[in-house]
């Protein structure tokens, strides 16, 4: 057949899905909301506004003073020297001291003007990041099933940086620019309204240029961002799959794929550069064009005796200020597109409400005995696709329940419900007699030990990871938990014992070691209910013995739900639930189920034969 794969990228690209929604560049709502983030720092914000205004007056004053010193004291002394009179240096010194003083004021104000602006940006970014993180922590599990890690990271990095630029720079320059335009307009209007009307008549030209570029720049910016996220996604997978790449000698192929992506991104970037370059220069030319037209009209009026020369000069001077400010505002406009897009995406994430939350009067569990009841419960991750049907069973305090069945039969879903990671669709789930809907999730989790398939560890030491279950536990408690499970020497034999760094996602530890660390973590929590999804079916047999022993200790005296793969666990369970396609098809102890000679004994026979064949 075809050789379609030859140019296949490393990661799949779906332009339709990648497409971001078109953002409206200048939304007043967005701007007000952004400004709202400066509220806690209102004092600094006001100081900054005052400084910006003060400096806009200070800078021209410095130039004026230089001229004044030259024209005043220096000229007069020169005159005195020329005429052979006694020299009076006092005005010169006064002038120069005044100048020096003003310089110091300018520079001190510059320091604060820059620093406060940067600080404001940093404060807002800092607050936004914290808010983002808090919001993420409130989101239920289903949110994480839908949302890619890359998306969340780019909100917290690229988008937030864009907002920083908006806060520390754009806002104040916009204020300043708008102020200048208004002042210049009022003054021009006052000097000669006819000339000002002539100036206004040219406004449509500016507007139409802006309109022309508006959509084009929006699209170009978006293309650039999207192509960049493709570069990043490709890069991330290249790093994660480096073993595969080197093992399968894909370096050259991957490099050429990456090269294409990078070039594509560069092309989009260039089109942005060209467009904004063109936009900027066109604005400049039209401004000059306006000046020329003003000059023509003004010159004509002057020659006709309609205005005086000084009116024209003054008007030309003011229109200079006017156009410079317009130019600045124009360039701010193209900068603001990025800021607004970033802000909008962050706010979209912040505004996504959690699908559900604990009710405000949720029951705070101070202890969990471990009584669990499922009553005609059904559940689906998506409403139209139920994965559990009519599940009913009772668990007494201290019992061990083994959940058995083929992949996808609903074992993990039962666990996801007991942990309140998801809520049941129909029917009831009671823990110690309370409906799970009414239980405060955190208080439940505090009395629950969870070991899941992924055996996820955080970057940090073994000690940090175990202590995750109980942050205020001392070293001794951690060591004691490991000792109880009988895996103390396994941990101590690691290169640095408890201080061994586990690496990114635990990569420095073997699967068996990772699982034992997760067991110890659950042990330290000393939970009333233990949830265990045994994943590692075949670690080496010596570790297996340790794990079995550790399990025995861990399960003792607490209600335990085990997605069981170990014969030893299943044999010792008080109740085995055999699931098939979301229904409980058999229930009983190991021996009872073998006697029925149904699904379970088939499963079991398969297992034994694969071992002993």
């Amino acid at each position, binding site marked *: 057949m075809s050789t379609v794969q030859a140019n296949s990228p490393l990661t799949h690209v779906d332009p339709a899905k990648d497409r971001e929604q078109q953002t409206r560049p200048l939304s007043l709502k967005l701007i007000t909301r952004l400004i709202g983030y400066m509220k806690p720092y209102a004092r600094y914000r006001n100081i900054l506004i005052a400084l910006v205004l003060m400096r806009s007056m200070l800078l021209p004053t410095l130039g004026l003073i230089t001229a004044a010193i030259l024209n005043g004291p220096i000229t007069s002394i020169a005159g005195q020297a020329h005429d052979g009179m006694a020299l009076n240096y006092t005005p010169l010194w006064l002038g120069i001291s005044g100048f020096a003083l003003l310089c110091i004021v300018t520079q001190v104000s510059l320091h604060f003007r820059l620093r406060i602006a940067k600080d404001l940006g940093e404060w807002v970014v800092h607050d936004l990041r914290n808010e983002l993180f808090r919001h993420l922590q409130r989101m239920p599990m289903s949110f994480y099933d839908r949302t890619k890690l890359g998306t969340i990271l780019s909100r917290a990095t690229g988008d937030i940086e864009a907002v920083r630029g908006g806060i520390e720079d754009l806002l104040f320059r916009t204020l300043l620019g708008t102020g200048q335009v208004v002042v210049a307009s009022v003054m021009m209007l006052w000097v000669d309204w006819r000339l000002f009307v002539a100036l206004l008549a040219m406004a449509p030209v500016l507007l139409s240029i802006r309109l022309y570029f508006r959509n084009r720049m929006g699209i170009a910016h978006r293309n650039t961002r999207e192509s960049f996220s493709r570069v990043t996604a490709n890069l991330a997978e290249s790093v994660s799959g480096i073993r595969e790449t080197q093992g*399968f000698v894909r370096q050259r192929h991957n490099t050429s794929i990456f090269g294409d992506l990078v070039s594509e991104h560069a092309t989009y970037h260039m089109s942005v550069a060209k467009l904004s370059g063109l936009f900027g220069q066109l604005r400049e030319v039209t401004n000059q064009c306006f000046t020329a037209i003003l000059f023509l009209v003004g010159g004509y009026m002057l020659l006709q005796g309609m205005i005086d020369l000084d009116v024209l000069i003054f008007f030309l001077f003011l229109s200079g200020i006017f156009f410079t400010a317009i130019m600045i505002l124009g360039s701010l406009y193209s900068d603001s597109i990025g800021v607004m897009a970033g802000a909008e995406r962050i706010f979209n994430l912040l505004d996504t409400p959690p699908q559900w939350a604990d009710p405000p009067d949720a029951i705070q569990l101070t202890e969990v005995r471990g009584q669990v009841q499922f009553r005609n419960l059904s559940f689906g991750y998506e409403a139209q696709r139920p994965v559990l049907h009519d599940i009913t069973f009772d668990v007494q305090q201290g019992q061990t329940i083994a959940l058995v069945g083929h992949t996808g039969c609903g074992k993990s879903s039962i666990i996801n419900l007991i942990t309140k990671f998801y809520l049941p669709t129909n029917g009831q789930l009671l823990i110690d007699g309370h409906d799970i809907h009414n239980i405060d999730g955190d208080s439940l989790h505090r009395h629950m030990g969870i070991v899941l398939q992924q055996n996820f560890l955080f970057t940090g030491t073994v000690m940090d990871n175990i202590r*995750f279950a109980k942050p205020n536990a001392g070293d001794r408690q951690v060591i004691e938990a490991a000792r109880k499970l009988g895996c103390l020497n396994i941990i101590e034999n690691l290169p640095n014992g408890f201080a061994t760094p586990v690496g990114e996602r635990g990569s420095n530890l073997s699967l068996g070691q990772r699982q034992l660390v997760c067991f110890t973590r659950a042990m330290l929590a000393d939970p009333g209910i233990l949830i265990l999804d045994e994943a590692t079916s075949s670690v*080496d047999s010596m570790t297996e013995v340790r794990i079995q022993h550790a399990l025995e200790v861990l399960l003792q005296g607490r209600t335990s739900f085990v997605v069981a793969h170990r014969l030893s666990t299943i044999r010792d369970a008080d109740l085995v639930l055999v699931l098939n396609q979301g229904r409980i098809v058999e229930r009983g102890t190991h021996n009872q189920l073998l006697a029925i000679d149904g699904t379970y004994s088939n499963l079991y026979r398969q297992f034994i034969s694969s071992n002993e064949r």
Partner: protein
Amino acid sequence: MSLVILIAVGILLLAVTRSLLNYLSLVSTSDLIQRRLVVELRQLAYEKLQRLSFHFFDANESGSIINRLTRDVVQTSNFLSNVLLGLINVFITMTVYLIYMLNIHVTLTLAVMAIFPVLMVVTVVFMRLVRRDLRIFHKLNDTMILTLSENVQGIHVVKGFARQQQQINKFARNNKAVKDRQRRIFFWMNLFNPISGFMTQVSMIIVLAFGGYLVVLHDTDPAHSMGITLGAGLFVFVGLASQFASQIQDLAAIGGRAQEHLESADRVFEIIDMPLDINSPSQAVPLHKSRGAITFEAVSFGYKTGECVLHDINFDVEPGQFLVLVGATGCGKSTLLSLIPRFYDPNLGKVAVDGIDVRCLDLDHLRRNVGLVFQESFLFSNTIASNIAFGYPQATQHQIEQAAKTACAHDFIVELPHGYDTIIGERGVDLSGGQRQRLAIARAMLLEPAILILDDPTAAIDPDTEQEILTAMNNAMKGRTTLLVSHRVSTCRRADCILVLDKGKIVQQGTHDQLIDAKGYYRSVALLQQADKETKRLLDQPDRLMT
């Protein structure tokens, strides 16, 4: 009126020319940077990254690597526009002003210049100060992002242990550390700008004071050699000097900015300049189709100097043989296997394929002859077909399906919504562990490797899907030298040779029949895996229990 029109046209012409030039310079600069420098640097770094040994990936977090190839590359390239081009621009302008000023008055010019060396010293001191902070800032930032991404990936652990508040606090601490460091940098940078600004203004004060004096000198004695006229002299000079001063300030600002660029450049060039410790030798022996013979001769290895993971390993595998490695967690099985495709080189001794030291072989040829399946196989977010064709992207659909059939994957693939074109989710969440491993086996099969390395492929798999993988493995092994890490006695039975490793040494070696009777690790393991007698009895006669 014609004069008015002439001036108006003049203004326009000038504006158009200037804009045209500006536009051209803008476009050509960003072409140079975006289309050439950034692209080239990224490709160079990426190409190097692909070849770096795993030591590098063990030592660097993925987030930091990604940052280097994205943000840092751009910062490095911008060094050209923001620093180099800026410097050239400033220098040319300064020279012109300087010549004019010298023309008017030499001593006065020198007086203006007096501030220059001081400013240089101040700039250098600030650069040093800020650079250190920038480095720390980057580290703190990486930590913060790592905390965020781990919280997303491990959200079930965070929620499961009710640690949201603790993690919120942890993130807030990271975030605050970043903020404090950032503000510190802002403080220094914004102290620097006004100070350099003030120093250039001092030069203006000198001009006014000293220049005023010189004017007086001139007017008292017009013939005095040091004198200067007011109108044509000092007025013009002050204009020039203020322009000159602003250029000096630009220069200092460029110096300050240069830090961020240099700091980023460090991080990029660290990758590009990193020596490749594992590479094809210059006169590599080609290995087109290996026979599949493997020899380990007195091999010792440690990841770090001083550490010893493997001691004095010796064994031979004949072409087509089946070797199983057995041993406790952390005994060095995976390490031993990773020496064959040269993911690491041994510290002592040699590993040979077909009798040739692997260090003499063409690296790409060697690796193409070795098929790999890991404990946890990484699949790319791409179609199933491209994942199977990963090692040979030119493969036809037929070849891909053949490989999938050998790996017992074809049946489940065609049942997926889009068959071979189904896209695997970001972290492969849509597939079960067993399905993922069968895809990994298919990926290895496509290359028809002479040597097959299976590093405990059933370790992270539910037992009920394990059977399917075992069948896939049996198909895959046919006609190839196979090295397998396993804990299953049933698998070991069929091995031509079993190596038992303990703490990096081979402690037992032989077939199942030889080892099962010898006292030692293997025997104890084999006994552990037998079903207990009571259960066996029940299985054989289930009806008896009921009565």
